[in-house]
């Protein structure tokens, strides 16, 4: 809210600089943003938190200033309706009906006759203009002036343009329209509260008046509206019409029930003074006042504030005398006093003061957060830590990240939302679309992590960065039995060169680098019980994709991105991509590490080559060798060859078997005997032959 310094001075004697005032207000909870100087005056831009509608007024802010600066607060003077001789009364026709009683708790309509529409007096015009409001004419300006000063929005209608001279507060009917003061035609909905006459809506209640009944230079008689509208109703309507006004802003936060009347009387007073057409030019004729009260807004209930509670929450105890003074300065009434407590009644303007803690906050605010010491970090409650550890995923996650980073992968963080179009392309069912997406391109929670990573690749390729090794730890989302679910995964993407030097050596990422990253993670977490098999997945090219299972549970999918997906994302390079389901890894991990003795006896290696059909996988061969003899401690594939000297549908695989004992030095003859045995079984069990 924009607040003019000189206006505040109507209610409080400010004798400090504007900067000091701003500092005080900020320290007490009304944060002052920019201070703008206008002539010799200043405008303070104050952020009013939603719990303080009372401070959406000069009077409210002035009260805060007074307390903060320890100055006397001068309340607005009481104004009484001017007495008017009966000779003037014309028994004007006018009535108010509240149809929508849940949305309008009070409506005061006052008919003022013989007003003279003219420019505003200078002090009103200047004050409004300094805070950025446009001066229109005396009557309209007076309503705006009072809105700023008291926080109560008001509206003036041209009485003569109201059909049937009846004000009806009701919800709009289907198909009704209104042209608002900003000369915009608005389609109304059944949830829009309107002020209507007997024929049509003449104002969007609490937001903006209608163009047809606007006060113009020709207006002679006005209806002055002051009301209490239900905050929610106004907020929803303002949203629907994308129209926030000074009035709607205050109604949304709630206006003060008694001020509905006092502000109206204040307006009558000012209009009498500055917009009268009557012979003596001092008063207007108030012809009729209709005050319809549907329901009084109750005062907050009385609160017993115990001093010990103040100390318990704040850790400090201001003097009782100071507390009592503060409570009074807030506008509260102290109903009774005891040694340990105060019984307090909050004023109607402070509907936020409902319970004990609300008063403790007021005490803290004005005592000064800066003056409350910062002391004694709370003691450690060590015994609780193990219980909480069960909730913690962070350690595990951090370790996984470390593993990926050590294998050369860089972390990315991507948006967890995809477009509907992508979901359609990926043909994934049971996804979770948002009910209220911002844009089509971010409307469905990602069911897999690949698309996010592919978009990172695209972004970088477009900027000439082609060598990528990235990972993301994030969630994927789906609907399982119509329950929304989330699952933590790690995504990996590799593309381009992994090694290059200036001697012409270059190595591109391939499938086995991806497999390396996954296996490194598995081995880091001591998971040995896993298997790898070919997998068919639409994201992957048929010739290059695998599924890794830990304890027979699907734990990772890895492969080369299929041509179809590459075309869809407009990617022209080879990309390898993987998704690891971290929950399965966490389940399979071995926490307990037992040291194994390192044998002191040397190993012996034996290499031999096999000729076998291409369809037989290396994995099968290894499976057939491992465990055949206790002295076999490792089986490695050291060469795969296809081409010259090898028949077309065959391949040659060179195997290295390592033999080692932890009891003795092995002899060549012994190892040769075992190796021959292995070869014999291989030839027997697999369609292969030993190459000489």
């Amino acid at each position, binding site marked *: 809210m924009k607040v003019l310094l000189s206006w505040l001075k109507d209610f409080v004697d400010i004798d400090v600089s504007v900067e000091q005032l701003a500092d005080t207000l*900020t320290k007490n*909870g009304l*944060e002052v*943003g920019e201070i703008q100087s206008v002539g010799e005056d200043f405008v303070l831009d104050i952020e009013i*938190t939603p*719990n303080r509608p009372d401070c959406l007024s000069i009077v409210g802010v002035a009260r805060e200033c007074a307390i903060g600066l320890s100055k006397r607060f001068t309340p607005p003077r009481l104004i009484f309706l001017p007495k008017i001789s009966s000779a003037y009364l014309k028994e004007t026709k006018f009535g108010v009906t509240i149809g929508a009683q849940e949305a309008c708790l009070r409506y005061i309509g006052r008919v003022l006759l013989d007003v003279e529409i003219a420019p505003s007096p200078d002090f009103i015009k200047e004050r409004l203009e300094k805070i950025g409001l446009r001066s229109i004419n005396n009557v309209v300006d007076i309503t705006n002036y009072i809105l700023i000063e008291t926080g109560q929005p008001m509206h003036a209608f041209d009485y003569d343009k109201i059909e049937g001279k009846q004000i009806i507060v009701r919800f709009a009917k289907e198909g009704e329209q209104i042209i608002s003061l900003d000369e915009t035609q608005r389609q109304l909905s059944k949830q829009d509260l309107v002020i209507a006459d007997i024929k049509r809506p003449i104002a969007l209640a609490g937001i903006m008046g209608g163009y047809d009944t606007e006060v113009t230079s020709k207006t002679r008689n006005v209806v002055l509206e002051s009301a209490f509208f239900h905050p929610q109703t106004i907020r929803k309507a303002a949203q629907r019409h994308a129209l926030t006004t000074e009035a709607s802003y205050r109604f949304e936060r709630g206006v003060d029930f008694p001020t509905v009347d006092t502000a109206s009387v204040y307006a009558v007073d000012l209009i009498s003074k500055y917009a009268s057409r009557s012979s003596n030019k001092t008063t207007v004729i108030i012809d009729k006042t209709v005050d319809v009260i549907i329901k009084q807004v109750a005062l907050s209930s009385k609160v017993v504030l115990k001093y010990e509670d103040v100390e*318990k929450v*704040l*850790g400090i105890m201001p003097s009782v005398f100071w507390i009592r003074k503060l409570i009074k300065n807030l506008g509260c009434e102290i109903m009774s006093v005891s040694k340990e407590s105060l019984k307090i009644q909050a004023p109607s303007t402070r509907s936020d003061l409902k*319970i004990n*803690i609300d008063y*403790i*906050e007021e005490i*803290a*605010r004005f005592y000064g*957060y*800066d003056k*409350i010491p*910062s*002391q*004694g*970090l*709370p003691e*450690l409650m060590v015994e*609780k*830590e193990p219980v*909480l*550890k069960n909730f*913690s*995923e*962070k*350690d595990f996650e951090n370790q996984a*990240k470390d593993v*990926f980073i050590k*294998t*050369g992968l*860089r*972390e990315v*963080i*991507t*948006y967890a*939302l995809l477009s509907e179009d992508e979901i359609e392309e990926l043909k994934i069912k049971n996804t979770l679309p*948002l*009910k209220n*997406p*911002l844009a089509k391109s*971010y409307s469905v929670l990602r069911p897999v992590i690949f698309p996010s990573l592919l978009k*990172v690749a695209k*972004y*970088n390729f477009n900027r000439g*960065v082609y*060598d*990528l*090794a*990235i990972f993301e730890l994030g*969630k994927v*989302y789906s609907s399982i039995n119509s329950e*929304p679910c*989330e699952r933590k995964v790690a995504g990996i993407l590799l593309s381009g060169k992994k090694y*290059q030097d200036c001697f012409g050596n270059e190595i591109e990422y391939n499938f086995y680098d991806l497999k390396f990253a996954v296996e490194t993670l598995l081995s880091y977490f001591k998971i040995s019980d896993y298997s790898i098999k070919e997998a068919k997945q639409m994201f992957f090219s048929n010739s290059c994709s695998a599924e890794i299972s830990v304890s027979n549970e699907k734990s990772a999918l890895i492969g080369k991105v299929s041509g179809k997906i590459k075309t869809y994302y407009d990617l022209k390079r080879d990309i390898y991509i993987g998704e690891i389901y971290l929950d399965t890894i966490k389940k399979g991990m071995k926490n307990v590490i037992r040291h194994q003795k390192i044998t002191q006896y040397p190993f012996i290696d034996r290499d031999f080559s096999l000729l076998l059909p291409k369809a037989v996988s290396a994995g099968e061969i290894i499976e057939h060798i491992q465990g055949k003899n206790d002295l076999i401690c490792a089986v490695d594939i050291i060469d795969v060859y296809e081409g010259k000297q090898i028949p077309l549908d065959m391949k040659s695989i060179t195997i290295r078997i390592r033999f080692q004992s932890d009891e003795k030095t092995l002899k060549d003859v012994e190892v040769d005997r075992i190796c021959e045995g292995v070869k014999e079984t291989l030839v027997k069990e697999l369609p292969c032959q030993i190459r000489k």
Partner: protein
Amino acid sequence: MNITDIQNIFTEAEEKISQASDSNELDEIKHFYLGRKGKMAQVIKQIPELPEEKRPLAGKESNIIKGKIQSLLSDRTQQLKTGQEKTQKIDTSLPAVKRTLGGRHPITIVIDDICKIFEHIGFTLVEGPEIETDYYNFKALNIPEGHPARDNFATFYLPKDNMLLRSQTSPVQIRIMKDVEPPLRILSPGKVFRPDNLDASHSFMFHQIEGLVVDKKTNFTHLKASLSYFVKNFFGRDVTMRFRPHYFPFTEPSAEVDIACIICGGEGCSVCSRTGWLEILGAGMVHPNVLKEVGIEESIFQGYAFGLGIERIAMLKYGITDIRMFFNNDMRFLKQFS
């Protein structure tokens, strides 16, 4: 034979050694002079035949010459070796081999830094789901129906009733308080979502860290101490900070914490909107309604909570002016942080 003969042998050897061009030649020279039947051996053999008064001098001289030849030989060997290295000199200015390097995302770095600081003072890291219910995200946090935060333009909703993407990390507080008896001291980083259109300072997905302490005597002075500890450790001992009253539905009294603008030092600039201060976190004493809701006896226990936005902190720390940089994942950007 006399002393001069011995010295002549040395002169001769010296010349030969200096002319030798490889180690084979040096080996031959060594053999010729110092070998078992070499020249020096022959000289030494002849010493007993000399007149008695000349014998000591000749012996001494022979030994010195032997030593000198030996050291000449090893010097020349060294010389030749160095010479060989010279011919194989490499161009050290050629580029190093290129390999992609791993590293953490700047958001992760900042989260880790913050967590470490709080872990030092006894906070335990916990986690909560990103898909939340209306209850945990709002109701239990004293945010009633009809509150603006619940609007369609402030929270993303899922098709299933009452399900949403959390708009803050605060629901984790509720989950922990409902599951674990106080005393509690937790910290919870994570992703949150709000329907804000993407621009330089808004993102529909960002990160927060939530902290919560609940104990019998935890009061406002402890809140100030913990947060001061954090600010001093994260932004530096010398940073000026202030606690300013604010409003949050789930805490009371509530505070916002500002630090003196690290760009302009408090003078006022565009980053701090000319106020000289940067708001970095929100905090407060847990509202009694929240404690009541989770079944913690609010007359016995009280606590404080705080929350901060990671992107904002990271932007301040690294001088980043566009929040979208974090999610574009431009390698040229990411490489600058680790």
